[in-house]
């Protein structure tokens, strides 16, 4: 029996109230209504700029008629101004900072422009979840960073129609002369950076020197080839001979690596069989094709099944999701052939456990020697990353100016290379290049760790891909020409977009098809499903509606071409 006195009764009252409030508060923080929406803006000075400020951010030269890039008078703002950005990061920044605004670049940018930036980063690997939750929360930052696959559900046009994403056409016209310059001088960018309805919904990274050559391709163990007296493999048969030797002579348990869907990612390896699937579909002369329906795909699967059975393929590939193969395979003699990004090929050397470890980039194999392939890893002129303004943007015009500064002659160099004398020197040819601080960092930072700290990480920029060449060893520099040597990207799909209705219909049909295909291809390769059933597999795809999906894609492609 518990007896509660008058006194303790009085003490229970506040306790109960506190407990109840404590329970409710965290619940409302996430779903919050009016109060919550104000939070991201609370620290920005959303007040109108004074009249005298009008000139502060104005272009110093006014492009009259002719298109030219212009420099800004700095600082861009006369009063402190903060921009909130939601952006995914990469493992490349973890060593140097927890938040991008700590980087040397953003600190310098703040000094120059007077604009400070506050980033929110999703956890690595959780980007899509976090992005969808952000969109649903209704509490937007000023800018969201978009990437392929990480975009407004239903497309950017829908984002604009829903009032979440800001339409930028007028703002670009009035306040972004440098971005406009690139849109107008590099014709393809206009197609790639606008939506179906002709909206500019985001600022895209623009490869101002043309599209980047392939940054990922196949590499093999050169020291193994040398000791086996073998030439660099050219055809699929050569590969078979090589992998067999790797297995038998070199004791590799996974002579060739593969990703969990049964392919090397980004169409790096299977181009010789005449299909591409990194964008699900590919096109020949503007006609949409779907890889599993192609005869070449059947042959590929057949070959992979044979290689798998013979132990030439990593036996655990089906459970490996890594974008590049795990280093405990590539550097230990477990694997002899795999794919790698060109600027990190040499990084395998440092971790290698074997004496004399050496790699060499090899071109994608073909059926017969000397064939020209049309499939490889390609890049668009507008890069992978873009920045969209949300409806919550406190002062769109200022933000657009600030972004456009990154495309101006001065801001462009700062973003790509950092500060002269710190991370960059102007060479004798008048071109900027990274110095030793970046490619031979005294603090032990890797190349990308260093430039992601001293220059801009991701986001919307005028992109100079050749900046990555500074201080690279030959094995890395030689890779891109080799990967391009026998393959153009003519069959790859340009960045087409579906309308909302098309998108919904396509998703409804294609999701099941995608699951089915991923499942079946792996089963064919591992032998859990007999190859005799390939025809039935194709029939099943048709009955699930793949042809309707291709029609939808075809319409989108036609629309893109006539843009």
């Amino acid at each position: 029996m518990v007896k509660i006195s008058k006194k303790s009764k009085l003490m229970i009252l506040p306790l109960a109230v506190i407990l109840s409030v404590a329970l409710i508060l965290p619940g409302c923080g996430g779903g919050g209504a009016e109060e919550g929406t104000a939070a991201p803006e609370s620290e920005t000075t959303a007040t109108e700029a004074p009249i005298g400020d009008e000139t502060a951010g104005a272009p110093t030269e006014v492009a009259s008629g002719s298109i030219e890039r212009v420099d800004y008078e700095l600082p861009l703002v006369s009063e402190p101004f903060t921009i909130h950005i939601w952006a995914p990061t990469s493992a490349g920044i973890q060593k140097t900072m927890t938040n991008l605004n700590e980087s040397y670049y953003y600190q310098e940018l703040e000094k120059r422009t007077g604009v400070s930036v506050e980033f929110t980063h999703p956890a690595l690997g959780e980007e899509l979840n976090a992005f969808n939750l952000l969109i649903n929360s209704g509490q937007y930052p000023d800018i969201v960073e978009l990437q392929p696959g990480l975009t407004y559900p239903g497309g950017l046009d829908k984002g604009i129609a829903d009032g979440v994403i800001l339409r930028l056409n007028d703002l670009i016209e009035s306040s972004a002369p440098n971005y406009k310059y690139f849109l107008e001088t590099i014709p393809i960018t206009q197609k790639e950076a606008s939506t179906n309805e002709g909206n500019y919904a985001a600022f895209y990274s623009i490869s101002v020197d043309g599209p980047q050559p392939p940054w990922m391709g196949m590499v093999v163990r050169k020291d193994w080839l040398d000791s086996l007296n073998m030439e660099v493999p050219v055809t699929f048969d050569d590969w078979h001979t090589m992998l067999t030797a790797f297995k038998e002579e070199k004791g590799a348990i996974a002579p060739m690596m593969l990703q969990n869907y049964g392919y090397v990612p980004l169409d790096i390896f299977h181009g010789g069989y005449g299909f591409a699937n990194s964008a699900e579909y590919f096109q020949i002369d503007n006609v949409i094709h779907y890889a599993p329906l192609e005869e070449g795909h059947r042959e590929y699967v057949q070959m992979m099944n044979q290689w798998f059975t013979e132990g030439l393929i990593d036996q655990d590939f089906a459970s490996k999701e890594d974008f590049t193969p795990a280093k405990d395979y590539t550097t230990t003699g477990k694997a002899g052939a795999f794919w790698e990004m060109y600027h990190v090929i040499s990084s395998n050397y440092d971790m290698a456990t074997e004496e004399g470890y050496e790699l060499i980039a090899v071109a994608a194999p073909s059926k017969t020697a000397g064939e020209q392939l049309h499939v490889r890893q390609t890049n668009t002129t507008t890069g992978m990353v873009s920045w969209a303004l949300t409806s919550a943007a406190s002062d769109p015009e200022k933000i657009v100016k600030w972004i456009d500064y990154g495309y101006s002659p001065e801001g462009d160099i700062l973003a790509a290379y950092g500060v002269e004398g710190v991370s960059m020197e102007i060479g004798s040819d008048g071109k900027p290049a990274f110095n030793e601080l970046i490619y031979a960092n005294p603090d032990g930072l890797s190349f990308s760790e260093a430039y992601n700290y001293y220059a801009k990480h991701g986001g919307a920029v005028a992109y100079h891909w050749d900046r990555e060449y500074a201080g690279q060893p030959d094995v890395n520099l030689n890779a891109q020409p080799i990967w391009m040597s026998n393959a153009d990207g003519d069959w790859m799909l340009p960045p087409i977009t579906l309308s909302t209705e098309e998108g919904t219909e396509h998703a409804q049909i294609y999701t099941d098809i995608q699951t089915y295909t991923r499942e079946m291809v792996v089963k064919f390769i591992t032998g859990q499903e007999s190859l005799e059933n390939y025809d039935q597999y194709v029939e099943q795809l048709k009955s699930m509606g793949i042809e309707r999906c291709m029609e939808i894609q075809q319409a989108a492609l036609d629309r893109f071409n006539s843009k």
Partner: protein
Amino acid sequence: MYVETGGELPPLHPCRWGNIVNITTIKKDFKRNWVVYLIALPVVVFFAVFAYAPMVGVLMAFQNYQIKGGFLGSPWIGLKNFTDFFKSYYFGRLIWNTFILSFYDLLFGFPAPILFALLMNELRSVRYKRVVQTITYMPYFISIVVIAGIIKDFFSSNGAITLLLGSTSNLIGNVSSFRSIFVGTNIWQFLGFNSVIYMAALSGVDQELYDAAALDGAGRLGKALHVTLPSIMSTIIILLILRIGNLLTVSFEKILLLYAPSTYSVSDVITTFTYRKGLLESNYGYSTAVGLFNSALNFLMLVTANFTSKKLTETSLF
């Protein structure tokens, strides 16, 4: 909690609420026992905010949910989300996978801790018993992500367990061994922890019953079968009913971490499907409909199990 009031009326116990017909009685009771009501408040708030308020979200199942409109602005589409799911290519497989994985888990995973508790009960050495208990419930406290990593590693083509089994192929990526690994590792994970409640029940068994059984000539097995087991039968049944109520909720995180396209045909379950549809494809309405359907089936099973048990053993939850 019983509160001494000093008044003439005895305090009202919650079990007697059924007898109340008069609103003034409630008022009187509130006046007298307001402290008890106050103490209950946090709990009521907790359930209201975290269990009942989110239920409004099931409305999405009947909408073509749009981010812009939210609950109030999205168009109503009746049962379309449900019929889409029933007509889906994978409907049958999802239901079957969910059911069969849970069923195996129940069949092998449910008796294991009971058996384990009975065995532990027979142990004489207290120290040995403690050591074994600690070791067996250790896995329960390891994060599921780590568990999945361990499982993937041990069952890979050159993993420790794969080699022990004399195999050279990747077992976790194999359709024929996925279920066994899933259920087997579940037992390993939860054996120790789930047996705690049975051990608690066992410690409450009257020692005199054992002495009496010994007089009647019962051996160790006899005692276990005729004294121990019947004594904890009601605990077993309650736990079984609860478990059946969760039959279609297989541990979602574990499957998500372990499955791969190669094993979709046995490992893709309703919850993982909901995850892909809802969070990855932003198809919120559809995903909610599937989740609601799953919960409805679970509820139906719980009620059926409870009813059956009530009829057969007179033990039930409600």
